[in-house]
């Protein structure tokens, strides 16, 4: 039987399409679990904490980011609940005074300057606008990182395809610029780059 001449071509094309659309997004991202199974919901509900109790602003305007161990140890010197996760946290981190190596979902590249104070205090932006409803989550979702560039999946945006005119929760420059344009802020390169 004569094989149609275009078959190898078609097979190759289909294989590439399948690999590129289905397999590639999985392959390009490395998934890691956070070192501690932390529940924002528990701390917001039971401990009555708001975002900036731990993710605080200092007097000079700098943002503390992910809190350091002494913040946690302030309450968790001894177990406050009954979960295994808390016990292992105390044994592995609090007692030996070892900082957990958290994975930062929103870590921007080195040359980006982002001032939380300006956006939150002056701009009135809520934490959820950019970081999502973290406060309602009962556990920390896995951290996904691009194997080659090292940037978090949250920066690029969850979909692997990003067309320039769509902003789906990513934190790339286009996303910042789109929001700035919408609100009519003058900007120049060095406003956000360092």
């Amino acid at each position, binding site marked *: 039987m004569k094989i149609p001449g275009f078959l190898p071509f078609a097979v*190759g094309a289909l294989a590439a*399409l399948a690999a590129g659309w289905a397999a*590639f997004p999985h392959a390009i991202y490395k998934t890691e679990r956070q070192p501690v199974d932390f529940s924002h919901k528990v701390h917001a509900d039971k401990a009555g904490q708001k975002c900036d109790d731990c993710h605080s602003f200092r007097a000079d305007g700098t943002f503390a980011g992910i809190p350091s161990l002494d913040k946690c140890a302030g309450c968790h010197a001894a177990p406050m609940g009954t979960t295994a996760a808390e016990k292992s946290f105390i044994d592995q981190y609090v007692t030996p005074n070892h900082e957990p190596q958290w994975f930062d979902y929103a870590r921007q590249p*080195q040359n980006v300057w982002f001032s939380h104070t300006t956006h939150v205090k002056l701009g009135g932006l809520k934490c959820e606008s950019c970081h999502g409803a973290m406060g309602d989550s009962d556990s920390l979702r896995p951290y996904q990182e*691009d194997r080659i560039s090292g940037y978090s999946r949250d920066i690029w945006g969850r979909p692997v*395809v990003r067309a320039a005119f769509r902003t789906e929760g990513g934190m790339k420059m286009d996303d910042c610029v789109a929001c700035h344009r919408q609100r009519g802020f003058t900007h120049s390169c060095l406003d956000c780059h360092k």
Partner: protein
Amino acid sequence: MTTTRRNLFKLAGGAAVGAMFTPAPWRLITDAALLSETWPGVPKPKRGEVSFQFGNCGLCPAGCAVRARSIGGQPVSLAGVAGHPLSHGALCAFGVAGHHLPYHPGRLKSGPAAQAAAAVRAALGQLRDTEHCAVLDLRPGRTASWTYRRAMASLHNGIYLTPEAPVVVNLSAARTVLSLGAGLYDNWGTPGNVIAAREQFRLFQAEPVESRTAVMADVWLPIRPASEDALALGIAHLLLAEKAVAGLPAGFIDRVKEFPPAVAAERTGIAEAQIAALAGELREHAPSLVIDEAGSPYATALNVILGAPGHTLVTRREAPVPDAWKNAASAADLAAVRDGSIRVLLIDESAPGDACPWNEIQPKLADHAAVVTFACSEEGYGRHANFVLPTAVYPEIVDDIPPAVDSPAAAFRLSAALMPPPDGMTNPADFIGALVGIDPKNALQDRAEAIRKSGRGSLFVPSTACSTPTKDVKPADFWKLLQAGATWIDDIDPRAAAPKLEIPALPVETRAAAFPLVVAATEAGTPAVGSPLLSKIYQESGLRLAPAGVAMHPSDARASGLEAGSRARFETASGSVAVSVTLDAAIPRGVVEIGGGPGIRNLCGARTSARVVRS
């Protein structure tokens, strides 16, 4: 289906075309570009909380006040403290990068401490009656210096040696200053003080090379090399002709007679009229002052003639010490030590100030003397010592900084420890104290307490930029404030006698043919060690001559077979060091300008004779 090559190519082609319609290649291109920016080849600064800490810079006796900015406890930058009564907010190019010193690649990381201690103990045990154990302290006046003096006093034949202390200068009292090659703008005294006082005096800079001080002076006198003494004698001649001055040695008067203005003009290359005008200004616009880099007796005599003692040259009392320390040894005169009598020599160059040329020390050493030097690099006396023991560097230790030459009042201030020292460092005060059973652990605090008890002076606190009299500072606060960077400044003693200037024996003028060049040590004042970032002012801009560099006139270089960038050896009677040669037609013939650094500083001072030979 047959697997022909054509089918394979079709498959590959299809795959390529298909791939273009997937995100993969586009994403990979972007990622590759991002990877080039995030790869480990470019180190990333660490983030953290910003904090500030006050201290004082320990790189040189100026001890300028410093404010350190730290990120997560790591100092990342240093700046001066505005309004400080001594440093006036100034910090020099070296001080600004002082926090890099702990990471200097040339830094010694380990040394034979145990071996050195054993060798010293053995030598001490065998010390004959006529032999000495000596400590050479390159920055006297510190609390550690008192530990050495106490240690040497408690040893049977201990002697304490320091470079000759210059007479204290009160620059703000001066109206006319004649500098014979002293680099007032080149890390002399306290930079901030020189700048603050500068408006009030006319500066005449006499030196063969146009240094930074010569550029900033009111008048630059481009004298012939090694003719500073002739200039001093010519001026003295004119001044003494007008009015005789008592107390000058007869030998000096005879010399002065040999230098009427015409002779001085001929020797120095400066016009007679200009020398006369200079003498006139020194006399009319008093108080005047002569500062001589080389400390020549003619300059000292000229200061006596000008009546500088008591006005621009003053006596300064030392910061108080605990009574228990008062039996400490005083500084011995190196020249008076018998040749070959020093069996153990311990050199503290961890906090360097002036240098003491090795060729003056060497004859005093006994055969097989044990020489131990405490330093952070091997460049200084390490060349000559049996043991080099590494010490912590300035931002790692708390140490006190004695007042600079231009501070009329005593000062006590501490350099802050911004980060811990690495393991394996030796503390010279501990080492030397241990030889005789003195524990200097609380010495700084004890001295601070003695100062506080004396009730003298005032305390400047940088965080408030306010001075409070010592009497009004709470006892518990005094030491705490000092540790937080405060500076104690003594009162000026109104009854202090004017310093008695000893005019040393007049030198015999010898110019060895073997060393035809005269050294212009314009960079002599630079701190012994500096951050690697100082390449900005050295190689990357040519603004200053780098430490391992010499600059000479092209003709002189050619005569020695040297070209720009040649590797050569700079040699004096004291020894030699490897240098790199720069050519500069602005340097007069017969002069070689040297860079800073301990390698050269310990070989010569200003106006030494030298040569540069191919290596």
